[in-house]
């Protein structure tokens, strides 16, 4: 498997096939005398922003903490990866995970206050 070709930037699908972001980053753990191994997949605006600008990423993380949205990006242990290919399926309850932190925040604070949002 090629990590960049087959995993990075692919669609993440949760348990119920819910779209829960793209694979925005891959975290490797280095081991003495042995090849590195994949520890986590990361998803979230700040991980993606880090690929463009470190300062932008820090600004997003600061905003997310100040507004109580989440404490950093979502990390999914590699052991939870079910499938790879055109999509990456993971064993995660997407809607209740921090991948949906912005979705929940905007739904509760903005969208549900607009008439007709729940119908």
């Amino acid at each position, binding site marked *: 498997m090629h990590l*960049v070709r087959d995993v*990075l*930037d*692919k*669609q*993440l699908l949760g348990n119920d096939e*819910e*779209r*829960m*972001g*793209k694979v*925005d980053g891959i975290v490797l753990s280095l081991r003495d005398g042995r090849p590195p191994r994949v520890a986590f997949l990361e*998803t979230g*605006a700040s991980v*993606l922003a880090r*690929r*463009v600008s470190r300062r932008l990423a820090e600004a997003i993380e600061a905003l997310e903490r100040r507004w109580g949205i989440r404490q950093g990006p979502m990390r999914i242990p590699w052991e939870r990866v079910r499938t790879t*290919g*055109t999509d990456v399926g993971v064993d995660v309850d997407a809607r209740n995970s921090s991948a949906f932190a*912005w*979705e*929940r925040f*905007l*739904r509760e604070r*903005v*969208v*549900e206050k*607009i008439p*007709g*949002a*729940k*119908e």
Partner: protein
Amino acid sequence: MQVALGIVTSIAGFVEVGSISTSLQAGATFGFQLLWAIALAATCLIFLIEMSGRLAAVSKHTLADAVRERLGFGYHVVPLTAELIVDFLVLAAEIGGACFALQLLTGIRFQYWALPVALAAWLALWKGTFGAIEKGVSLLGLIALCFVVAAVQLHPRGRDVGAGFLPSLPQHHAPNYWFLVVSIVGATMSPYLMNFYSSGAVEEEWTEDNLVTNRLTALLGMGFGSCVSMCVLIVSAMVLHPEGVKVESFEQGALVLTRAFPYWGFLLFGVTLLVECFGAALEIGMNIAYVPSQALGWNWSENVKPSENARFCLVYTAAIFGAALLMLVGVDPIELTRFSMAFTVLILPLIVLPLLVIMNDERYLHEFRNGWLANAVVIVIVGLAFVLALVAIPLEILGGS
């Protein structure tokens, strides 16, 4: 039935502020001479739309999905940003077109219509489903066929019309001529049409069984759509060109139907412009939410309640009211359209080039990958797009005024 609906949808999607205003200008300034540009751009579009639909039906991924996943965020960030800017400008131009139509019909200045039009568009997206919006826009959009009726009633000479399909050099106003070619390509090969079409195919849960429908819809739908655009040009060439009218505002263009329909031509033009621009605003509004949602992997669908897709709905909400603000401060919709069409051509190579990689990827398309003809066409389109992109800005400066 599905093909018929697809064709009707395509006609409505094809005819909007960009194609109406560029066809009016082309016919008024150069007679039938620029018909070839519409035919060429429409032929390219047929191939691009077929590929977008095939990608969605086979892989369940839209174009924006596939570009990010296959070419990575480092590449995608450029066309993604460019497409969002173009979509936003075109959305503002469509809202502006609808507002101008209301000004023609009521006499009340177009700025006053910006917020009501935006509110109506937002409400349709907030409460509607993909299918309901598509069917509504499509059926109302058939009013554009009045241009076909007008073109037939005016009895253009077949030889003159036929000559327009052969590319020829202009005898006067060369920069303006080539700028109109760029604008026609920009208005016809809108990036939003490709992603919107593939998003629609995913919304409607197309599978490999829909590939024949997809091919027929692309061919006949875009074919008929371009026929309507050509009829706008023909009517303009027969009515406005002999009078020496240059279409610099919609008021000048509004007289175009009065010879074929003496009593209600003006009203018909206003209603057609209103319906087509409003319909296009709904489609672009949806697409402007589809593109970032798909690029970032959010849950997206026009078929669920807003509270279940908060990010998706807030993107189109912000875009629609932001675009209306441009009209509210008095930006001229025709000028904005002219600029957006040139900008569209500028980004076209970035949008089309990834198709060469994606449409040949076995993991996405399995045995339905591009054949040699489709690949050759993509290469030709990319080449054409590169040339047009290089000349778009110099021509905008020389010929756009």
